[in-house]
């Protein structure tokens, strides 16, 4: 009596409903020759019947599967002798219920079964069987009932096409809501965890504190280590790495975009553009070890030979490599907006006797600037959220420093370190990760909104 079997049967009923509905429509029109008297094509009557047979039944099945367990547990618990539940914490009750379920299904139980438990388990399996039967009956009744309903309503003047269209629209709306609700759910869960964090640590300390040392005591009797959650060193670290990355990516990306769109012969463009885009396809972990194993030691050597003191993990190494990673972002977005500047602008400028570089500097770049700024902002939000490279190459030390040769840490790195390893999920330490995540999310969201706004404005200008 598997649920999947039931699902297959319902699908079978749907196709049956399709043929029946179609047939009925043709018959009600007075034969295949008089289909034109139908409001819609026969196919729509078939679809209409199939949807009626399928949707209510499948909805019932989904609801049933979702709530059956909870209802059964409530029923079984109500029958347990009160003495068994007395004085148990909610967690212990949960364990007991689990044991009863395991007993019922014959799995391993964590304690010696008492007669009361055995009785409860027997009740549980009986109820489950009844529930499954009831579900089968209910679902099949809905399917057949839906089919019958559609059958009864199939008349030549019924607007089957309009009905089917609106049902399809509802289905699409439901699925897009799933995407939106998921996002909302993630945001809300991060938000609530952050609020819990801010009940323990004041937001003032978090946003303006300059000491980050998130070691809280695991046991009450442990000495020291109450934790300091001043996130400023993380923000400055993130800012420094992203700034270095943008200093690399913006000039290189922009210049290559200009070269590719304005100067490069078609032959050069045909291989240079894909090559540049390969950079975007390199997994970030590869960039990470390139930064940690190649660039960082190189910078260290270079710095030492000049008598500078360079940390083995430096903001500079992480920023440089991150910049390389972001180049294709900047270049392909900029190239798109530069290409979107109409040829008429170039012609107008050339016709006034401007040279190519004058045209680029005075007409094309200013015209494309909003779009380029939008692209750069998108790249910034990408840089801020980037994790792997900084985890591997920027270090873990929450230094508040302006020296790019020092090791720094970023918001994303700290989220990773706070949440890896065995954790209690209700300590300030782990909840700090949510607060950091929320901050990161807020910043990138704002950047993205501004960027998209700018890009949209720019697009409109040349519609």
């Amino acid at each position, binding site marked *: 009596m598997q649920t999947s079997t039931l699902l297959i049967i319902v699908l079978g009923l749907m196709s049956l409903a399709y043929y029946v509905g179609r047939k009925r429509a043709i018959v009600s029109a007075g034969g295949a020759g008089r289909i034109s008297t139908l409001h819609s094509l026969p196919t729509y009557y078939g679809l209409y019947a199939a949807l009626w047979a399928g949707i209510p039944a499948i909805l019932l099945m989904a609801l049933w599967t979702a709530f059956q367990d909870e209802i059964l547990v409530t029923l079984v618990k109500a029958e347990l002798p009160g003495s068994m539940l007395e004085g148990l914490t909610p967690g212990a009750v949960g364990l007991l219920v689990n044991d009863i379920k395991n007993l019922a299904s014959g799995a391993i139980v964590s304690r010696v079964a008492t007669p009361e438990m055995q009785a409860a388990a027997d009740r549980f399996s009986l109820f489950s069987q009844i529930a499954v039967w009831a579900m089968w009956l209910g679902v099949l009744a809905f399917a057949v009932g839906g089919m019958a309903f559609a059958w009864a309503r199939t008349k030549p003047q019924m607007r089957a096409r309009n009905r089917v269209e609106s049902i399809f629209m509802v289905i699409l709306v439901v699925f897009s809501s799933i995407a939106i609700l998921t996002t909302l759910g993630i945001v809300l869960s991060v938000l609530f965890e952050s609020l819990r964090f801010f009940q323990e640590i004041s937001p003032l300390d978090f946003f303006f504190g300059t000491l980050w040392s998130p070691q809280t005591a695991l046991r009450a009797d442990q000495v020291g280590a109450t934790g300091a959650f001043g996130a400023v060193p993380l923000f400055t670290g993130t800012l420094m790495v992203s700034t270095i990355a943008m200093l690399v990516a913006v000039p290189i990306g922009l210049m290559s975009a200009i070269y590719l769109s304005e100067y490069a012969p078609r032959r050069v463009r045909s291989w240079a553009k894909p090559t540049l885009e390969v950079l975007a396809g390199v997994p970030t972990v590869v960039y990470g070890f390139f930064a940690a194993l190649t660039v960082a030691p190189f910078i260290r050597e270079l710095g030492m030979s000049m008598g500078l003191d360079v940390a083995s993990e430096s903001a500079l190494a992480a920023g440089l490599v991150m910049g390389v990673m972001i180049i294709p972002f900047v270049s392909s977005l900029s190239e798109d907006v530069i290409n979107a500047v109409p040829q*008429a602008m170039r012609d107008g400028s050339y016709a006034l006797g401007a040279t190519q570089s004058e045209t680029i500097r*005075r*007409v094309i770049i200013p015209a494309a600037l909003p779009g380029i700024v939008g692209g750069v902002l998108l790249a910034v939000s990408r840089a801020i959220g980037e994790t792997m490279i900084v985890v591997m190459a920027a270090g873990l030390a929450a230094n508040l420093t302006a020296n790019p040769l020092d090791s720094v840490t970023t918001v994303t790195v700290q989220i990773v370190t706070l949440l890896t390893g065995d954790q209690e999920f209700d300590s300030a330490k782990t909840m700090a990760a949510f607060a950091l995540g929320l901050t990161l999310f807020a910043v990138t969201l704002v950047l993205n909104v501004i960027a998209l706004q700018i890009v949209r404005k720019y697009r409109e200008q040349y519609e």
Partner: protein
Amino acid sequence: MSTTVDDMSRRIGAMSSAELAGGRESRVTVGDVTCANPRMVCRDVDVFYGSTQAIKGVSLDIGKNEVVSMIGPSGCGKSTFLRCLNRMNDTIDGCRVTGSIKLDGQDIYDKGLDPVPLRAQVGMVFQKPNPFPKSIYENVAYGPRIHGLTNSKAELDEVIEGSLQKAGLWNEVKDRLDKPGTGLSGGQQQRLCIARTIAVSPEVILMDEPCSALDPIATAIIEELIDELRANYSIAIVTHSMQQAARVSQRTAYFHLGDLIEVGETNQIFTNPKHRLTEDYITGRFG
């Protein structure tokens, strides 16, 4: 339109390579291609896009203080010929121009000549108004700035006011010079483009169907303007409208499939065309 392009490619396809190289069939232009007081002198101009020939041995003078209109069916090469006159064809990959085109006696295709200053002397107005996405002021200031024509802000202001006045736009925009040029109406934008061209004091102004994107009132204003501009400039205008050619030009050239078929006084072309193709076109039997 498609038939004419097809005809042309078929004709070119039918030519032997020897014909393409030299002894190609070329029609003799009916009428007098010269004029009394020439500013630009074109002789035996051929234009190729790759291996396709778009202009075949065209000779034509453009006189001082006159408007020459170029008419003919779509794809006959009017724009191509016009773009030879300020070397805008240089910006097209694979476009090759032979023959001689002189501006005030100087060959503009001379190896030593820089096309950049030439384009200041021979300005161009396009079919679709294409103001830069800058302020009205900056649009007109663009040319004088890149050519360093003025030494002070006051001088630049003067050039801009003068150009806008000559383009008949000053009164409409004098209070909003800092507003974007793209915010003007289509006709105003086209006059802004004319002002922008005038600002670098050209000798010749080329116009490629300057009114085809405009409404009748804006068209009438531009036509009037063209007539005024004739006092100071030589103008070559491509137009689709025979009425427009009749209204604004002194001489008219009729192009057909890359050949210049007939040139003459505008009056004569429209009342008494000598070539059968010209007559077919202006009486509406073709094109």
